[in-house]
């Protein structure tokens, strides 16, 4: 463990041992000289990040428990501990969804169902972001990714073009592009940079102290710190663009759901065996979609074993697998039917999207005439949250959140019916604005 000393010198005041666990990834071959591998840009960042967050959770991360699970978790760019349970979680590719789930992501080993009412397809945006996020994580390592990689995507779909439809990373406004360039040069290893990073904690500490008095400032600081600690954890996706180059079979496996159950399960298992060192993100889009699934699947004795089998595989690999699934619930939520409840039961987490009916949309359009970017598209009902619901916490929240689908992100925010009266709107709009912006700052930061 020769690199240990090296990093201690680097982050002198904090001496954050987090670097150790984060650096000790499986993708780094031990033959690599410690000097070269010890100071990758990410590690430098994580040193500063670790200190700026003033986190004191060093000891547990040092423990050799990591070796039991797959070591990739510690260094994987798309994995961070959940603030709620400190279990590792991965980003869903939608920052607001990450936050809504209560873990800043979907905890590894958990499964999420997104139901959608009506005939709209907002959930597909979430699915595509989830898929694209996996691919982006995989490519963090650069060209190495295609050979080794850290993430693999499995999609249960008939859509052969799924890979080509994934959105690209949001490039941001000109300012953002500039900022990213700066950070790129900063991260280059120069003597100056290492010195700077050593001095950073002091400044940040002061900023932190002042920040205590100001909520929003604190929030933004904290999320910036999060971004520093987990620079490649979560990205914003531009749904109008395409991920280039499109993922290849090395990054993505398609499995047809339209085949016997055991075939589906064994193919899924094979993927897990073949990519035994990677995080596997499983996507089951449009579950029970009539075009993709034959009518038999609507029978409980067919769909329940399928989901039970898939759940079993995820749980068996619970240290490196996540699953997301969507279904249109209107088709199957006939009164007296057990289907939707039974499917929900098979998932650890479930949310329900309810797009606004026409009148509501028109109302919102009228109210937010001057701020069209504030128009929400529907309600988000929470049914179950990962890990938390399973241990008995009650997290059913209906009509408390609303979503908005924009070009660069899918937003989820607290829902309140805006006031229609235009005069009241004038005076109150400002307050509401600042309220919502305050609560949203943590999420809507662009970079």
């Amino acid at each position, binding site marked *: 463990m020769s690199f240990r000393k090296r990093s201690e010198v680097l982050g002198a005041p904090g001496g954050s041992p987090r670097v150790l666990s984060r650096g000790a990834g499986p993708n780094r071959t031990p033959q690599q000289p410690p000097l070269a591998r010890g100071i990758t840009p990410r590690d430098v960042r994580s040193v500063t990040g670790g200190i700026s967050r003033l986190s004191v959770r060093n000891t547990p991360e040092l423990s050799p428990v990591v070796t039991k699970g797959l070591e990739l978790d510690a260094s994987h760019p798309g994995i961070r501990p959940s603030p709620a349970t400190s279990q590792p979680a991965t980003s869903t590719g939608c920052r607001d969804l990450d936050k809504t789930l209560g873990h800043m992501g979907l905890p590894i080993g958990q499964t999420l169902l997104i139901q959608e009412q009506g005939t709209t397809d907002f959930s597909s945006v979430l699915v595509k972001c989830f898929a694209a996020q996996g691919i982006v994580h995989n490519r963090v390592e650069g060209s190495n990714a295609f050979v080794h990689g850290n993430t693999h995507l499995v999609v249960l779909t008939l859509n052969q073009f799924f890979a080509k439809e994934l959105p690209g990373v949001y490039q941001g406004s000109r300012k953002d592009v500039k900022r990213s360039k700066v950070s790129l040069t900063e991260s280059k290893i120069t003597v100056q940079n290492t010195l700077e990073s050593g001095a950073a904690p002091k400044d940040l500490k002061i900023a932190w102290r002042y920040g205590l008095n100001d909520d929003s400032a604190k929030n933004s600081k904290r999320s910036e710190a999060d971004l520093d600690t987990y620079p490649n954890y979560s990205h914003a996706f531009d749904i109008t663009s395409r991920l280039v180059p499109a993922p290849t079979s090395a990054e993505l496996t398609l499995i047809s759901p339209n085949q016997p159950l*055991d075939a589906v399960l064994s193919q899924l298992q094979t993927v897990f065996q073949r990519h035994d060192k990677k995080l596997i993100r499983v996507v089951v889009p449009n579950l029970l979609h009539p075009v993709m699934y034959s009518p038999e699947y609507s029978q409980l004795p067919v769909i329940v074993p399928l989901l*039970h089998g898939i759940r079993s595989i995820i*749980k068996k690999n*619970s240290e490196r697998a996540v699953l997301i699934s969507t279904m249109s619930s209107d088709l199957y939520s006939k009164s007296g039917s057990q289907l939707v*409840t*039974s499917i929900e039961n098979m998932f650890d987490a479930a949310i329900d999207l309810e797009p606004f009916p026409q009148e509501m949309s028109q109302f919102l359009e009228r109210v937010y005439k001057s701020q069209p970017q504030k128009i929400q598209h529907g309600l988000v009902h929470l049914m179950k949250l990962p890990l938390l619901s399973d*241990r*008995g916490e009650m997290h059913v929240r209906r009509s408390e959140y609303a979503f908005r689908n924009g070009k660069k992100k899918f937003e989820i925010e607290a829902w309140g019916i805006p006031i229609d009266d235009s005069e009241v709107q004038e005076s109150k709009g400002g307050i509401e604005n600042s309220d919502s912006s305050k609560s949203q700052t943590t999420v809507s930061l662009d970079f």
Partner: protein
Amino acid sequence: MSMAQKQDLVIFSDHSVLSRELFSKDLHHVLFVTHKLGTSPSWLINALVETQVLGFPATLNESHAAAVNRASNRKITDSKCATVASFIHNRGFFTSALKKLKVDAECYNIIDYMTDFVLKNYGKPASKVLSSLLEELSNESATSELLILEQPELLVHLLNITSDQLHLELINPLIKKFPLLVVVSYTEAYENVPSDSNEKLSSDMIEQIRFCNSCFFKSAAVLGLKPLATGHASDVSGTLTITRGGASLSHLAVHVVENEYLFLTQKDTTKLFYR
């Protein structure tokens, strides 16, 4: 609410959760736990295991630190252990929770019918699978006095059988093997039962209702978990209602104390209050 008096969980009239009377020789009893969306029963399952192992639900109502502290100072009673068999959660789900409660791993056994159940049993004749399940679970009765079955009703769909077959070929023989059987069922589907009785029930729903009703008539007590009708609240997770079941306990010196608790599950602890 934080001021509210915490309450001990009591199910039987001798102020116990699981009365020793239940474990009298040659007697067999059933408890039925129902839960709905939003009120997962895992804390209650853990509390029942803890009760079986330690004689009382030690960590219920305690803050986590206090519970762990207390747990380390207690001695284990000589009662037999508990077995939990789940069709929806894997072994790790229970072991990690019970480990946190410092329940000695020697004192319970988890049977995992989640992992690979479909891979192992898909396409096999149902009665064969049921008899192998029965055999495996029966073996547990050598060391366990309490068997907790979580969501056995999934077998109706996993094996495509009727609830009657499930009861006759699995539940009934298991009742015979164990002094106390706890059936934990997910009853969210009931929320979707058409209120108009003239409307025809779907056959899935009929099976579900038949399964639960049968469980009800077999049980001495029903522990019903449900969220508040008003939805999410920050200081209450839901209610736990303890009611008499369909089976008579007149042959015992104890009876079921009907009660309704409010409970709050947060982090890894659950607290009970009176309504």
